[in-house]
């Protein structure tokens, strides 16, 4: 049964940063040059094709954008400057918006001012909240210990509530992703056994980004893994050891060592990424969507204020430390709220999931060839 073409889809994707998609004349160079392009997942050309023709449903069910790490080889060699790499990037943004049921993601990606407004709003709300909350119990001149302006226990509690809320959003979106890519089409339905059997894949890819390391270019992966590990370390420290990190005057060195390393990692990698994008030093830095800038900017801001706040505290300026802490939180909260479920950060779940699902789809296919699962055609 024929699918209907939607000539407007390209324009839609362009608001997500796609460029020159229609320039592609399908020589197949990009697919052949990509080390990840293996049957049954042949990309980026085919995804480009679906997009050119406007096969919306095909694209929604498409895992391939998540299997691409944008090393840029395809874009560099493209004879028509059709930017397949950037197209895959924009498809990831688009998919994130498709998975998100709230429609917020869609809004954030399509208008940068909406995103800025959102950030500002949440930041102010956060600031206001903590200000009121902080002054109500503690003294702004006290950083830790009794009568602290922002007692770590309270922050801790706050962190966990926020984590739960955002987690739920993200989880729902992940489920939607599953439905679009695995559940909807009977041909891609895997048995529970398969799910269990492939679970390892999920964790492996989540922590190591093994696949990324298989790109011909290694530098981007290194940068990314450092960034990601630093981030996770920081997250763990904050979620579980916040009191330890903030407690004084005695310093718990193992936690701090980790903390310092992580912060350093964050700042350096983010700075590198920023410089890269400004200089357009590499293919995958050539085109920057507004969200890329905002994301990096916020990350840098958060890292810097975090470090500053900590330093001030250790250098014994509790008042300044508290102010920066407030500023820090006014960055952290909007960043997490907007980025984790609705934007860039979500990919930390989608990517490993996509690889997990991809592995499963191959299992299903093999099973079908073996005749285990009956062939079912969809309308």
């Amino acid at each position: 049964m024929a699918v209907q073409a939607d000539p407007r889809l390209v324009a839609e994707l362009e608001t997500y940063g796609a460029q020159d998609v229609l320039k592609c004349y399908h020589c197949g160079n990009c697919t052949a040059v990509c080390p990840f392009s293996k049957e049954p997942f042949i990309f980026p050309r085919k995804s480009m094709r679906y997009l050119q023709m406007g096969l919306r449903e095909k694209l929604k069910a498409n895992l391939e954008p998540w299997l691409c790490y944008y090393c840029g080889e395809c874009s560099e060699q493209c004879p028509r400057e059709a930017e397949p790499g950037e197209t895959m990037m924009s498809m990831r943004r688009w998919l994130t918006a498709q998975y998100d049921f709230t429609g917020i993601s869609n809004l954030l990606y399509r208008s940068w001012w909406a995103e800025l407004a959102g950030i500002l709003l949440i930041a102010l709300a956060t600031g206001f909240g903590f200000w009121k909350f902080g002054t109500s119990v503690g003294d702004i001149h006290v950083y830790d210990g009794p009568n602290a302006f922002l007692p770590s226990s309270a922050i801790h509690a706050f962190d966990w509530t926020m984590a739960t809320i955002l987690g739920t959003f993200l989880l729902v979106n992940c489920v939607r992703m599953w439905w679009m890519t695995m559940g909807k089409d009977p041909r891609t339905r895997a048995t529970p056994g398969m799910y269990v059997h492939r679970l390892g894949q999920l964790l492996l890819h989540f922590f190591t980004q093994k696949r990324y390391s298989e790109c011909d270019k290694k530098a981007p992966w290194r940068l990314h893994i450092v960034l990601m590990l630093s981030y996770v370390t920081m997250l763990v420290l904050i979620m579980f050891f916040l009191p330890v990190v903030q407690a004084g005057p005695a310093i718990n060195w193992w936690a701090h060592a980790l903390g310092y390393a992580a912060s350093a990692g964050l700042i350096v990698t983010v700075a590198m990424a920023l410089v890269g994008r400004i200089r357009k030093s590499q293919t995958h830095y050539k085109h920057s969507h507004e969200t890329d800038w905002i994301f990096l900017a916020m990350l840098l801001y958060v890292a810097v204020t975090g470090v500053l706040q900590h330093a001030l505290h250790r250098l014994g300026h509790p008042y300044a430390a508290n102010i920066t802490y407030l500023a820090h939180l006014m960055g952290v909260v909007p960043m997490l709220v907007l980025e984790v479920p609705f934007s860039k950060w979500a990919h930390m779940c989608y990517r490993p999931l996509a690889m997990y699902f991809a592995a499963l789809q191959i299992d299903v296919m093999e099973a079908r060839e073996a005749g285990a699962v009956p062939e079912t055609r969809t309308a």
Partner: protein
Amino acid sequence: MSQLRIGVYFCSRRNGASASAPDTRALATYAATLPQVAEVKILAAGASLDPAALAKELASRKLTTVVIGAQSPGYFKTAFTRAMALAGLDPEAIRLASFREHGAGYGDPTERAKAVVACAVLDVPFALAAVPDRTPMHPDTLVIGGGIAGIQTALEIADAGKKVYLVERSPTIGGHMAMFDKTFPTLDCAACILTPKMVAVDQHENIQLMTWSEVESVAGKPGDYQVKIRKKARYVDLDACVACNDCSAICPVTVTSEFDSGIATRKAIYIPFPQAIPNGFVLDAENCTWIQSEGTKCGACVKKCSKEAIHFDDKDEVVEVTVGNIVVATGFETFDARRMDRYGYGTFPNVLTALEFERLTNASGPTGGNIVMKTKKLNKRTKQEEWVFDPDGPRPKSVAIIHCVGSRDRNYNPYCSRVCCMYSLKFAHLVKEKLHDAKCYEFYIDMRAFGKGYEEFFERIKEEGIHVVRGRSAKVKEVGGQLLLRGEDIVDDKVLEMPVDMVLLAVGLEPDAGSGDLARKLGLSRDEGGWYTESDYNIDPTGTHRGGIFVAGTCQGPKDIPDTVAQASSVAAAVLKTILREQGTGSQGDVTLASIENLARQLAEI
């Protein structure tokens, strides 16, 4: 005719003025002075026009006629046509002032553009108004380049009893066509149809053949050019030489043969190929021991030559000829496959370019037409192992042909080279014909079989069992001495990791390296691809803006043999025309605005 109200609109597709872009403001002021012009407007560059809005504007200005002035006004015409229709005006009453078409590229672009606008406003075809002065015409003609284009032009003119100087840079005429094995789609052997013409050139009383010569300088004006030609020292007296091959046989120096595109060797004294015209030897001074040692070493050939035809004291000689017309037929050279390192040409021995394969499969080539793979052989003199074609070497079991190498690619040459698809199909046929059970694959983007009998040939190739794969493959690797080709089979939705024994690169065409230099000497312009620019794409594909200078064949753009021959003959027509009426025309570029405008006004009266 009734009073018109003409609106002149200046449009441009890209903002940012290029070198050949005229000054629009100046144009606008000029246009306003022309008769019946009621409105002059400069539209924003790059803006896409909205016919509805335009319609309102046209109606409000009560215009009857529109003149669109632009480098390529055609891009805006349809919008205006629709606007006219919407405004209830005559949609046919639109005139184009195309600066590009009418040569804003040469002379002062603004002056030129003014003239073009004037003609459009006065509704006089530009070519009728821009008439260069007639010049006296010297009956002799110079043809630069001895390939099939040059040969054809020279013969056509000479057959009319007119004198022709045919200058060829290499030691023989014949050009690339002489290197080919078969010609598509009829598969008759290139030599069979070319050699008679080469012989005819050699024997023609009206053709003075100057091989191993180059144009040094060009002076004078249309109809009367003084051309200095450097005849490089050949060191062999052609009248004495009987091509007996004794000198070559004894010569100790072996170098790679240009004619065999590097897959075979020749001596320092050599004849490019048996049917070479003129049929005499030539000495390659760079590689000759005797010359390099200033007569202290070797000299074997001179002793050997019974006809005493070899003279080491031979010197370059510069001759000056006076001609009325000059025909440029400098042809092409192939894209250097080394530039696309992903195909491993130059690294992997059995990745070959088209010309190499032409020689390999050619009956008169180094393997006598056997299609074999390169094998390692010990070179006795250099004591080194090197890859060579051994006539009874192993036959490839599978051959892959990759199309569009260096063509249709913004990173290399954006244009289509026009002949590669067909010669690739020809290769496939030859492989099948000579190695029946060998597999043969074509990796293509679009199969451009557009000529007479071409599509039929394509069908025939498919029947012969050649696998045509849509998708130009991207990579050639070597794994354990086995070539591995990675590509996408788009139609069958596969990623291929295919082991093959031989890869043929369908390298595209590029203008001859010397064409830039020659363009300067002749004052010709070239397009971004480096091809000579014709004076009019449609109706004068062989003329240039310089009077009495014509371009023929592939130097004007990639072409196959029939199109080249047709062009070559058409140049002959242009030349003969000037000779028959004993007057030529000056340079298009020199025609002044005043003269064009005056003539246009006169014509408009009639």
